[in-house]
């Protein structure tokens, strides 16, 4: 146990007839940046609420820093920081008042742990007298993170901190997380953005209450076993449809300005694909063998 900050053991949870979590087990090492990657409805928030002691598991058990999520909930609440998916600070308090409020609740002061939040807080400090409800999305997110950190937690739970956040702010947020990790904080973060998986030490891919895969991101992508190609032609609108009709095709998914084509077997050559597409009146055909990314893997695992 000592090496682990969080352990989930066979956790299930049902709401009425919906099974939100189905036998979830994983563990997060101390100091690790661990990602739960999956779409809305996968069960990420339910899992976070169980691990932060806000919801009882239906069955199974959870431990945070050696404390049981059911029996030792009071102790757990002292040593974790939790940023829920929905903005939950006091909208009618100012930035500074919110921060002071959270510090006081945990029996500390902003001054005592200022070092930990300085890099994040300085960005919103010019607006410290503004009501939290009047902040922009990016600033709310920075304030929420500051409040979750102000008591210097051992483990930080961040539920979809980057949802609805633009690409630039998302990158900045992940840089902040890396800095916090260097200060020794264990971080469990969830996200529906597949491209963020690569920024975590390890990830669990989760879908419909089940874990599809847990590992380091590059180990997961290495296990993608189908031949995968990036295909571009002069007729991109028709390309996906034409590729799906091709006999050797396993899947054909749009990825930005190209299509990722996976094949059922190794036998089909690039030349054969090229000939097929030429026959379908595609021009400027470019085919390139590529390594799978996490999104390729997620879709592959979803369909299995």
């Amino acid at each position, binding site marked *: 146990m000592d090496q682990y900050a969080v352990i989930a053991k066979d956790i299930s949870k049902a709401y009425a007839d919906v099974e939100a979590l189905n036998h979830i087990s994983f563990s997060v090492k101390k100091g690790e940046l661990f990602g739960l990657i999956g*779409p809305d409805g996968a069960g990420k928030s339910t899992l976070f609420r169980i691990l932060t002691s806000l919801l009882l598991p239906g069955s199974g058990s959870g431990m945070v820093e050696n404390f049981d999520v059911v029996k030792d909930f009071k102790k757990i609440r002292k040593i974790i920081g939790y940023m829920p998916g929905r903005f939950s600070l006091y909208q009618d308090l100012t930035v500074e008042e919110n921060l002071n409020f959270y510090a006081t609740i945990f029996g500390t002061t902003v001054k005592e742990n200022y070092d930990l939040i300085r890099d994040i807080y300085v960005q919103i400090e010019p607006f410290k007298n503004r009501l939290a409800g009047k902040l922009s999305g990016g600033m709310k997110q920075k304030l929420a993170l500051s409040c979750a950190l102000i008591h210097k937690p051992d483990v930080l739970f961040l539920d979809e901190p980057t949802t*609805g*956040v633009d*690409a*630039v*702010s998302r990158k900045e947020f992940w840089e902040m997380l890396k800095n916090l990790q260097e200060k020794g904080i264990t971080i469990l973060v969830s996200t529906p953005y597949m491209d963020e998986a690569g920024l975590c030490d390890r990830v669990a891919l989760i879908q419909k209450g089940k874990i599809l895969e847990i590992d380091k991101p590059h180990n997961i992508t290495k296990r993608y076993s189908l031949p995968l190609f990036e295909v571009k032609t002069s007729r991109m609108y028709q390309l996906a449809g034409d590729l799906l009709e091709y006999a050797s095709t396993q899947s054909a*998914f*749009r990825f930005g*300005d190209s299509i990722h084509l996976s094949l059922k077997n190794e036998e089909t050559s690039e030349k054969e694909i090229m000939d097929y597409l030429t026959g379908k009146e595609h021009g400027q055909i470019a085919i390139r063998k590529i390594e799978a990314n996490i999104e390729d893997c997620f879709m592959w695992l979803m369909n299995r």
Partner: protein
Amino acid sequence: MNKTPVIHTENLVKKYGAFTANDMLSFDVFKGEIFGFLGANGAGKTTAIRILCGLSKPTSGIVNVAGFDIYKQTEKIKQNIGYMSQKFSLYEDLTIRENIRFFAGIYGLSSKIIKERTHELLTKLEIVDLGDKLISSLPLGWKQKLAFSIAVFHRPQIVFLDEPTGGVDPITRRQFWDMIYDAANDGITVFVTTHYMDEAEYCDRVSIMVDGRIEALDTPAGLKKTYEAKNMDEVFLKLARASIA
């Protein structure tokens, strides 16, 4: 796609007190086009969309939507557009059929047409048997597909999609774009915002807002060339990050 503008703005300005949320926006969106409307949080996208949907008046400038003037004909505009967002789409405590009837009724479609098109829609989505299910019982991906279908149910000239795919699983997200392509092929103009930069590549043209202004507007290929970027993510970072730094 033809070159008839269905949205036309000229020097559109919107001020809130001393703050300029939209600063001299001038652009056209053409019939049947998929137009990506990108920008960082707080860049002014929501303000502009509210104006284009007839929910708010500009401080100054010319704005025409679906052939109607934004100052005098907002009710006409509302009848000729569809709208869907991730946050507001359908009523959870009504069934699929009830939601369709409700929204179609608001747009003044006759019972006969509603009945015909409902059958057509449920058949196309392969959910004829699920018509009497509550929206709350459907998975998110289904809700979003249905919400889009209902947003174009009254055959609007333009449909506004505000982050329609947020949080949706990667396969459903792509199926959603198939529906967008179908709508565009039928001549409906699609005006869409997204934080997924791969989706920006699926648009015919993309505008990028920075600090209230339209900083760039071109095809994805054109933007990548201009900003010497290998994908739209890089284009976006170059433009939006430059403003922060």
